[in-house]
């Protein structure tokens, strides 16, 4: 077949250009090849940084590999042990508590902040920037600052309380199991509220004023307008924000590790921090991987639920 220099229009899929055609022409004219080449970097990144570690993690969780010895396949014995282990069960409880309570308060406070910032305020831009700071500051830095704020001897909060006569001795923020739990949850709420606020603010600004005006003309109160106009209009963005926050919070590591390292006595261990302690500090790679595997189906389920609900506009 004679080589042709005629260009094949983009989108036509009458087959690849024939032999003898320069590769540059092939590349320009073959949309399938171009599609593959454009997708290739993303695929390599997904495979290299997500797919491979995930598959390796699954494999490790099914073996008894440690840092010292190569692993043999042991089936589900790591998982069987973990569900009976009190420390693991505590970590599961902590993770669920941490996620549910944090998201609940982040949503409430984020919505309040969004409603406030949506009003006509002086220095609105500056206020928005300031309120974003907790989310923007690197987690470890803010965690270290909070570690000082919660110090059992040198807490600024205890100092203020004692000098105001509200308390008579230092508060044991991080030395008592439940105090430590509420303390790290409070820090996560502080850190995550701006994300909710800024996202909900964006949603608020897409709510048509005419809907509010119509409701007002029908005699709706502020609460009724919020309940029946604003909230339904924000359902889509709420679903997305809650999903993202659930993923980040459920798999959180750096905040808790920086403040308590999972203590006191495992009272603040999340699945991620426990997995790190087992795998990296303890050398038990397989058990650490198994702990981490418990995170995956939960996040997968949350993502799928949100995907299907949003795509079918069921929120």
């Amino acid at each position, binding site marked *: 077949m004679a080589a042709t220099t005629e260009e094949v229009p983009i*989108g036509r*899929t009458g*087959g*690849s250009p024939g032999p003898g055609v320069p590769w540059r022409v092939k590349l320009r004219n073959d949309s*399938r*090849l171009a*599609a*593959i080449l454009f*997708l*290739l970097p*993303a*695929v390599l990144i*997904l*495979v290299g940084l*997500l*797919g*491979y570690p*995930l*598959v*390796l993690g699954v*494999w490790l969780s099914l073996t008894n*590999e*440690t*840092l*010292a*010895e*190569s*692993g043999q396949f042991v089936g589900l014995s790591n998982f069987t*042990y973990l569900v009976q*282990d*009190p*420390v693991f069960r505590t970590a599961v409880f902590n993770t669920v508590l941490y996620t549910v309570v944090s998201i609940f308060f982040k949503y409430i406070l984020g919505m309040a902040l969004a409603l406030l910032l949506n009003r006509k305020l002086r220095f609105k831009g500056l206020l928005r920037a300031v309120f974003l700071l907790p989310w923007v500051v690197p987690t470890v830095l803010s965690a270290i600052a909070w570690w000082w704020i919660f*110090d*059992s*001897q*040198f807490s600024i909060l205890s100092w203020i309380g004692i000098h105001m006569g509200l308390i008579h*001795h*230092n508060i*044991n*923020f*991080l*030395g*008592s*199991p439940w105090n*430590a739990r509420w303390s790290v949850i409070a820090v996560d709420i502080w850190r995550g509220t701006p994300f909710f606020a800024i996202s909900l603010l964006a949603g608020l600004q897409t709510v048509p004023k005419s809907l509010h005006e119509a409701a007002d003309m029908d005699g709706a109160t502020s609460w009724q307008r919020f309940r029946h106009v604003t909230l339904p209009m924000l359902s889509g963005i709420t679903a997305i924000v809650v999903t993202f926050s659930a993923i980040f919070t459920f798999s959180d590591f750096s905040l808790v590790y920086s403040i*308590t*390292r*999972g*203590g*006191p*006595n*495992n009272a603040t261990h999340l699945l991620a921090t426990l997995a790190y*302690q*087992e795998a*990296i*500090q*303890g*050398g*038990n*790679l397989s058990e650490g991987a198994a702990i981490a595997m418990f995170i995956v189906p939960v996040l997968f389920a949350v993502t799928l639920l949100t995907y299907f609900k949003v795509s079918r506009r069921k929120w």
Partner: protein
Amino acid sequence: MSRDGDKFPPALHTSELARMAASGVSRRSLLRSMGLGVGALAAGSLLSACGGSSAGGAPKVVKSGPIEKGAKLKLLRWSAFVDADQTYWDKHTKAFTQKTGVPVSIDWETWTDVQPKAATAAHVGSGPDLAIAFYDTPQQFPDKLIDLSDVADDISKEAGAWFPTPQKYGQSNGKWIAIPLGANGAEWNYRVSWAQKAGFSEFPKDTDGLLEFAKAMKTDGHPIGLALGHAVGDANTWTHWLVWAFGGMTVDSNGNIAVNKDGTVKALEYAKQFGDQMISGVASWDDSNNNKAYLAGQLGATSNGISIYYSAQSDAPDVAADTMTAEFPIGPVGKPTQFHQISQFMVYAYTPYPNAAKEYIKFMMAPEQYQPWMVASEGYVSPPLENYTQDPFWTSKPQYTPYRDAAKNMLWDGYSGPMGIQSSQALADYVVVDMVARAATGQQSPKDSANQAAAQLKRIYGV
């Protein structure tokens, strides 16, 4: 005619894409499935490359010889708690470079990051050439290290015999896999004037006396404080001392779990009474909290390295003038049961410069370097070799003397069982620290706390 897409998961014609789009499959979901598909294809070969270390625990034997041409070393070391430690270490490292032409770069790591980084380097086969890691980290992966038996012998010729426990830490199956640098000794630091006011002219020598001391100090408003948080040094030191002082142990010499026997339960009953005398918040303390509290005058006594006294001399001279140190008291077992944070040089088998690494270790452990460094650090590291304990520095001030024999008197983690990856994991999981913490804070009864620790250890030791 071959398609370019044959090298990848099957490329799709536009018509096929259109059918998929109509069925609800978007390009985005296609990308996801392609990514997973490629990942699955690659997984087989990649997994086989991730088989971890080979079985067997023998270190790599490297015949001693001249320093490799073009050698340069990277050392992973724990960060200094005492300024002079780093000053002298850097100075001697520079002297080594001037003598041998081998540049040495040092990564000064926070204590909690040393073990994971050292272990990860061993596992992936890449990283620093040598590391100074804590406790029995080298025992986790002896086959990833080089045999340092010749180095240990050479050092001993100049500096005297190795003490028993450091030697135990450094050896695996009779071969040296690590060279102990020494023990970051932790002994009691207490305020003399407050102790005298409480009726104690000297620090108690037994555990009964220690409990009375703690009660009296609390009554006077100067409580003691010992860390019970998840930190590498202080919490491990005193909780292991306590359990052993009453005859308890995690594992016996036959490798059986022994933590839930009488000795441990008695230790935990003592811990409950002892914990009631402490300042609040100790369950959250890491290695720095007791230093800060003591220097601020909030503690009557604590256990710590010489760093508290070292810092007090410059930052709180009135506290330093009133501070004395003492060894850990003896428990009902009638002999010292101290536990200290030992650190050891180890050289990775993957290093292209094993002889350079060996020469560096010998240089830093030689009397001309080790002794000035030890003295300048004011005894922060207790030496693992006999001759260095005879340095007049140790008796130049009464505050230094209790730290002199820390490496000599110490026991090992996992006592009295063998050292290895199990003892290392038990330490990393804070099994003993948490067991004592649960009892000391009243969270669990001594018996229940010991039983919970036993269950954890059974899993770790595989029994």
